[in-house]
């Protein structure tokens, strides 16, 4: 089976993981901000 995307290795994998972490942090921040806004 030919993968649609090339496998992420080395620096590419590191950047991808970092990007995912930043997206997760931003998602948490947005959700937490909404909780504070509606709970206050």
């Amino acid at each position: 089976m030919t993968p649609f995307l090339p496998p992420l290795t080395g620096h590419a994998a590191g950047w991808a993981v970092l990007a995912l972490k930043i997206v997760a942090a931003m998602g948490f921040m947005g959700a937490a901000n909404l909780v504070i806004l509606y709970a206050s």
Partner: protein
Amino acid sequence: MPLSGRFRYGRDPLFLAGLALYVFNRAWLKPHLHHYSPFFHGHLDDCLLVPVALPLYLFVYRRLGLRPDDAPPRWWEVALHLAVWCPFFKWFGPVVLHRSQADPWDLLCYIAGGAVAWAIWNRPARRELAPGLGGVRLP
């Protein structure tokens, strides 16, 4: 890691004191006030935003691996969150979500609370604490 004690996030004394003050104000003080008080009904909560909310945010960043150590909140971490919270709570909330009110004094309270919290978290006495020893004071 800077020369300061390890930050304890959800067990930080300032966080716990601020949370206790917020709960006390919300659950007991405000319901027992006979007249509207701008400070207790509004500004106090705004002053507590940074000391109560920021440690929880930083804890999540630490668990995600985005925060490299357990140093006390850095000035730019406080400033970065204020740069997000000020427009979010005083523009996006009131204008877009029709929630909360856009009061310029609230922004001042956010900034003042953040500045005081940062000063306490980074007070010189912390530099006497041993880094990495969980706040054990050296003889």
